[in-house]
Structure formats: C-alpha cells, structure tokens
C-alpha cells in the first residue's frame, strides 16, 4: 500500500470507535485449522484481549480465501477488513489503542526485532513441520486442510498449498534442512526468548505488548497441539519460564470468558490444557 493509501486508511479507521460486533475469521477449529494458522489466530485474539477490545471468533471453511492477503486470521471491523497481526496492530493503533506506547525508541526496536525472530524462526519451523515433513503431511496436514471439501478438491487444494509452501522454503534456504536442524533452530529461538523474558512477568516488564501476544500464540499452540511426535513441544517445555508465561496469559486473558467464545474454546480444541 502506498503512503497516501495508508494515511487514508488510518483516517477512516480513526473516524469510528471500536464496534460491538467486531468479528475475527479463521478456519474451522475442530477439523480444519492447522498449527501455524491456529498460532497466528491465537496471537491476534490475545492481542485484542490485552487491549480490552471485544471480538467474536467466526469459523469459516473458506476464511483463507476471504482474507485480503490470503492469510488468516482477519478481522472485520465496521466496514473494514484487516488481516495478519502487523496490520491489525497498526489498525488498532489508529483507533487509539496501543500496548507499546510506553516503550522508548530502543525498546520498540527490540520489540520489533523479537517479533521478526518469532516470525522468521518459529513460524517458518511450524510451516516446515506441517508441509515439508512427510509423516506429518500424510497423517495430519492433508486430511485436515481439505476436510471441508469433497474429493478430489480436497487433495488438489492440499497439494497446491504444499507446492506453494515448498517453493517458499526452497527460496529462503530451508528446503535443504533436516527435521533435526529445524528442531534445533526452534530450540535456539526458545532459548533466546527464555533468556530475554528472564524472571519478568512480560517481555517489557509490567505491561504486555504485541510481542507477548505473538509469543503466547505460538508457544501455547505448540504446547497444546497433538502432532505425530512430541519433539516440538518438548523443546518448548525445556524452558520453565516460557510455560509459566503461557499459563499466566491463559489465566489472565482467556479463563474469564464465556465457554462458547474465543480463547478457551480455541485452547481446548487441541484436547489438552496446560492446567492439568
């Protein structure tokens, strides 16, 4: 989007307050949604909860195709549609709500760098596991991805998406990596996050920011999703402060909600809970 278009969108966004009927669209929770999309969706839900903005989660099989950027989740607020965490944060900021206003310039730079780290390593590792590891692809991804559609459409769509993701992995140099190397990268990323978090409640001490929402979305999904192996979640469980962080955010922002609403239902969709 050019600068002029962006300024125009911000003007439009600022004109109206946050409505009651804002909706967040994602794929079907029980049968269709995959690890990476669930993580992104949970991150956005956590962010909106942290900003105290009400949103209801709507599950549609074709959410990916409805989205303006082709990625889930996207929010429908008033008469505007915004997808992905980055643009949603900008949109919410234009409406006057922001979690990172209290940070100084150096801290903002750090926050952006850590968000890129999560996107670069954790999200790419999730995509790799889902689409490039043959066992997972066969047993989990293909059945889930095409589940709302009849044969042969389900197979065609799944193969199309797989081809697209594998092309991207090849372009960024991840195609040659083995699963062990990818898990090692995940471990390195979790170690960095754990060291940055330390003993603080949130990454920037007292107040949560969009980085906390993003990290929660990814780590919680990894911890609570059943895959063919437990190796990925074991890597995260090695770091006690990260699991405590996820538990804290789940309790604070998702426990107090209605059963048929956003977070807790999403959290339980993977049939496991952190609080055992």
């Amino acid at each position: 989007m050019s600068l002029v278009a962006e300024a125009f969108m911000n003007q439009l966004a600022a004109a109206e307050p946050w409505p009651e009927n804002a909706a967040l669209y994602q794929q079907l929770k029980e049968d269709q949604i995959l690890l990476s999309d669930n993580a992104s969706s949970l991150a956005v839900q956590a962010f909106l909860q942290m900003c105290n903005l009400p949103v209801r989660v709507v599950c549609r099989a074709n959410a990916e195709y409805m989205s303006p950027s082709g990625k889930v989740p996207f929010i429908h607020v008033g008469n505007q549609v915004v997808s992905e965490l980055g643009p949603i944060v900008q949109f919410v900021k234009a409406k006057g709500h922001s979690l990172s206003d209290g940070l100084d310039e150096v801290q903002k730079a750090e926050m952006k760098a850590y968000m890129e780290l999560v996107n670069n390593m954790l999200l790419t590792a999730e995509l790799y596991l889902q689409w490039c590891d043959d066992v997972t692809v066969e047993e989990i991804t293909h059945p889930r991805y095409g589940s709302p559609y009849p044969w042969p459409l389900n197979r065609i769509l799944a193969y199309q998406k797989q081809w697209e993701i594998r092309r991207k992995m090849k372009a960024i140099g991840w195609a040659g990596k083995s699963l062990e190397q990818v898990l090692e990268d995940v471990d390195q990323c979790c170690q960095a996050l754990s060291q940055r978090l330390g003993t603080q409640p949130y990454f920037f001490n007292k107040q949560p920011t969009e980085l906390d929402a993003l990290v929660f979305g990814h780590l919680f999904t990894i911890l609570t999703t059943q895959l063919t192996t437990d190796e990925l979640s074991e890597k995260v469980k090695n770091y006690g402060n990260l699991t405590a962080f996820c538990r804290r955010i789940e309790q604070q922002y998702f426990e107090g909600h209605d059963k048929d609403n956003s977070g807790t239902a999403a959290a339980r969709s993977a049939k496991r809970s952190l609080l055992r």
Partner: protein
Amino acid sequence: MAAPMELSCWGGDWGLPSLHPESLTVMAYAKFSGAPLTVNTINNSWRTPKGDVPVLISEDTVISQPAKILNFLRKQKYNADYELSAKQGADTLAYIALLEEKLLPALLHTFWVEAENYCSVTKPWFASRIPFPLSLYLPGKMSREALNRILLTKGGPPLYSLTEVEAQIYRDAKECLNLLSKRLGTSQFFFGNTPTTLDAFVFGFLAPVYKVCFPRVQLQEHLKQLPNLCRFCDDILTCYFRLTVSGHSPSGQDTADANLQKLTQLVNKESNLIEKIRLSLFLCRWMTTFVRVHSTPLES
C-alpha cells in the same frame, strides 16, 4: 594449534574486501575474533564444493552458511561473543532476524533486480570475474534467484505488482535502518566497545549498500542520513580491514590504471593489426610486381 582454515568467497571493490554480504559477515567476524583465515577470492560459485558462497574449508570439513561457519569458529575457540550476557546473546539473534527479514530483500533488489543497477554495475562486475562462458549464465541466474526470493517472501496479495512490492520492501528497509541507528546510538559497537557477531552481520549487510556506487541509490541516500551507522562502517573498515575510509582513491586509482592498461593493449592490438594489414598489402603488391616482372610475355 588449530588446523589451517581457508575461506572461499567473492572478491571486493570500492574499498570493501568483498561485495557479497554473507562473505563480508564471515570475514568481519574472523577479524573480530582473531581467527587466522586465508581468504581465497573465487571466480565461480560452481567451483565451491556445494555451490554456496562463502565456504570454509578446514582439513576435511566443509561448512557453507554464515551462521554455521560462525558456530564452527566459536567451537575452535575464536569467540567474539565471550563477554556478552545471555540477554545480549538473545538480542543478537533477534536483530539478525530483523536484518534478514527487513533489510535483505531491499539489498538483493538494489544489487540484482533494479534494472539500471544490475546492467551497469552488478552484471559487468561479476561477469568480469567469472570465466567465459559461465559469465554469460551465472549473473543472470543469481539475478533470477534474487527476484524469486523477493516475490515469494514479500510478493503476496494485497501487493499485486512489482512496483508495489518494491515500494514496500524499501519502506521496510528504511525502517530497519532507522531501528538499527536508534539501537546503536552513540556507542562504538552494538554491545559496548568490542565488536561481536551482531556487529559482523550489520557490517556485512550495510557496507555494500554504503560503499558501492550505483546509479539508483535510494537506500544509500537514506543510510547516509544516519551518521552513526556510516561511522560504524568506516570504523570497522579502518580498524580491521586497513583500507582507506574514502574508498575511492585506491580502487579508483586501480580502476583508472586498469582502464589505461586495457586501452594501451587495445591500441597495441590495433596497431599490430594495422601493421599486419600493411605488411600483407605490401607482400601482395610485391608478389604481383614479381609475377609481372618475371612472367614472360607470350610471344606470338
């Protein structure tokens, strides 16, 4: 005593030891940590064992990506991050991810995709260092790979045309440069007074943008407005690579000398050619006069 280590990478110009960001990163880290590396400039990425550049060869081990090469050097006890705290180590990883996501696409675009830059600077430079006939093929291949990478990582909807993608990646790159400048502030290196892995990566990405003279330079102009980053690059070049700061004089002189040499050779060749033509014309004339003089007319 550690085994001798050899690094194969692309050569340099415009005052830089190498034009390739990843090669530059590894060379800078080796200087910071005191690792004794012999640097071989290659003229062809197909000569390296895996086709990747840069490549470190030490006895029997061949290692090919910057992150892995740096890990190997650390295991050999050449560690520039010795004094960093755990949090600073984590920050290093985060900032490297920021560089790769936000700055690398624009860097690749400036070098390999922007038509004027590619045709007038990058392609001739690489083609002159790669032997014929690969020089006709390799630069084009590297350019296509760069464009592919940019489009696959940044080019999805709602950006539908190449100009929109370009605008977005340059905006991201300028924001990244601003963030780096704020993080560096007034200190000499990113983590105090000694350079570390992060300094090597930032130097590797920034120095080519800063020094190489392109016709289309929007990223370079933005970088020049951030004096602390320019000072950072110049400091590393003068302290660790012992090259002049301006960068124009020695290589400028070198290119002038090289041009002069090429011109003289051409003139020599031409004069040789003229001589040969003159000689052959003379021989022809001599042959014809000889034949005319010595041929006996037919007497009727």
